[in-house]
């Protein structure tokens, strides 16, 4: 499954909860080796979308293909090849970093050693610390290390830097950079403009469960037109405003 062109393809994805339409005909493709960002405000349907792609939620309609396979028929093989970081996962307080990593590593047929994982996320010095003693940034790095335990081809990250301080965010971006240099593909959601500009090759702006614009961060900014760029350096924030008439972080 490592020779397919697209790591993720989804077509006309639909998901509703009662009367609320969370995902409304969403389509996009993630190429192998790229970092693709779903950018949008809270409630735009990003988490629902990524959880459908992770095989945790069944869509009401639409087609999903991950690493050239389908969840219905290939769940076992797919899970071996994916790394997943979810919002709000709290690992067991009184297990150490090393014990938590060993646990997750044990689920995979192949993968990295505990030492390699600790090195990747720079948690060597916290190897023997209980999870409850870690800072927010360290917990998030542990979560990424667990996602990397099986040496995945594709990494799903749901708002990986929400609530982190600037230094922790940069640390996390560096981890992503190293993962991609080794050939990995990343799909992440974020509501931070600067994050999308820094780490993503391509970005889809999601609002009300649909993709309203998709391009490289540069391309999206350029689409605002020349005059604006002269006035000030355009950002994705401006792109979002131009498309929706709202600020990104309004809720």
């Amino acid at each position, binding site marked *: 499954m490592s020779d397919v062109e697209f790591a993720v393809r989804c077509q006309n994805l639909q998901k509703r909860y009662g009367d609320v339409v969370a995902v409304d005909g969403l389509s996009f493709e993630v190429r192998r080796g790229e970092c693709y960002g779903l950018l949008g405000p809270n409630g735009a349907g990003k988490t629902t979308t990524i959880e459908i792609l992770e095989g*945790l939620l069944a869509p009401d309609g639409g087609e999903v293909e991950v690493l050239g396979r389908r969840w219905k028929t290939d769940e076992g093989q797919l899970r071996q090849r994916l790394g997943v970081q979810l919002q709000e*996962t*709290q690992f067991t307080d009184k297990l150490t970093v090393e*014990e938590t990593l060993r646990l997750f*590593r*044990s*689920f995979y047929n192949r993968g*990295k050693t505990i030492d390699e994982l600790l090195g990747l996320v720079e948690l060597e010095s916290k190897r023997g610390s209980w999870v409850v003693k870690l800072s927010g940034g360290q917990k998030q790095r542990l979560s990424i290390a667990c996602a990397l335990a099986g040496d995945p081809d594709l990494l799903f990250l749901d708002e990986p830097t929400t609530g982190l301080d600037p230094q922790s965010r940069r640390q996390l971006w560096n981890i992503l950079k190293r993962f991609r240099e080794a050939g990995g593909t990343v799909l992440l959601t974020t509501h931070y403009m600067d994050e999308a500009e820094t780490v993503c090759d391509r970005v889809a702006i999601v609002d009300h469960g649909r993709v309203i614009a998709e391009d490289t961060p540069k391309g999206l900014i350029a689409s605002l037109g020349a005059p604006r760029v002269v006035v000030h350096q355009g950002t994705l924030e401006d792109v979002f405003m131009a498309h929706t008439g709202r600020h990104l972080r309004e809720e």
Partner: protein
Amino acid sequence: MPTDARATYRPLVELTLARFREFVREPEALFWTFLFPIIMSIAMAIAFPAGGGQTVRVGVTAGAESHALRQALAGVKDVVVREIPADAQLRALRNGEVHLIVAAGSPPTYRFDPMREESRLARLVVDNALKRAAGRTEPWHAKEDLIQIPGSRYVDWLIPGIISLSIMNNGLWSIGFMTVQARLRKLLKRLAASPMRRRDFLMAPVIARLAFLGPEVAAPLVFGALAFGMPIRGSIISISVVAIAGALMWGALGLLMGSRARTFEAASGLMNLMSVPMWVLSGVFFSASNFPDAVQPFIQALPLTALVDAMRGVVLEGATLASLWNELAILLTWTIVPFAIALKIFKWR
């Protein structure tokens, strides 16, 4: 990317170790696991003394008219006489302060509740003593051959029941709560996103429970043997088999109770609903045979009844496992069916 194919990691071992560590790093949980059965045994042993006869507490009025009564009863073996004013007598009777009220007269009046066993006993003892004091001649005096067989006293009967109860409580509550906690912390969802086999996750806490079973069962048994001279007639193997079967069963039932609950309140409601009736019905504190015949098949099929009966069988009677096949089959059924249902209906998010 360098990968690590040589090292072997066994998911079931790691999951079991995680549960084990989580538990031993919680000092309160450890404390209650081992102390609960001992505290219960001591409390019950004090409340229901094993050796010596029960004393009979008799209430009489303080005045001169009952002087003769008090004299007649003074010095009678196992009888304690209390002077209680007339207006407080009924209350003393109701509270169990005295078992019988004797009002002076010719003949005297006995006031008591015939539904209370100790009151009926008091009536016989007092009646006998008063008639003898009034000059009744005894046709003969029977010889008494007093024996006390360890193993047939209440405390002996009680301890295997308490052990069964603690196997129930520890299995049900620790596994049920850990499961709900992992769901609340979204850890279950994260695990479901990994290639972990779901069966392994559900088996791990049940297996981890077995690590504590040894001391948990041994502590009250040794305590009973040393403090009360309780006999332990069964082999270590058969006691272990019954204890393990019980622990696996309550583990499976704990999983089932925690399989869908989203809050601790919901889970404890379910677990109380399941376990509290069994505290009463399953014959831990008093024999289940007190209940009418019509409900006996139901009571005998309860998981705690089967465990209590099997535990008493191996500890007190030295019953062989083969002779307990009926109880063991009930335990096994209550293990497999709840586990299968839990696996099926378990909510991972």
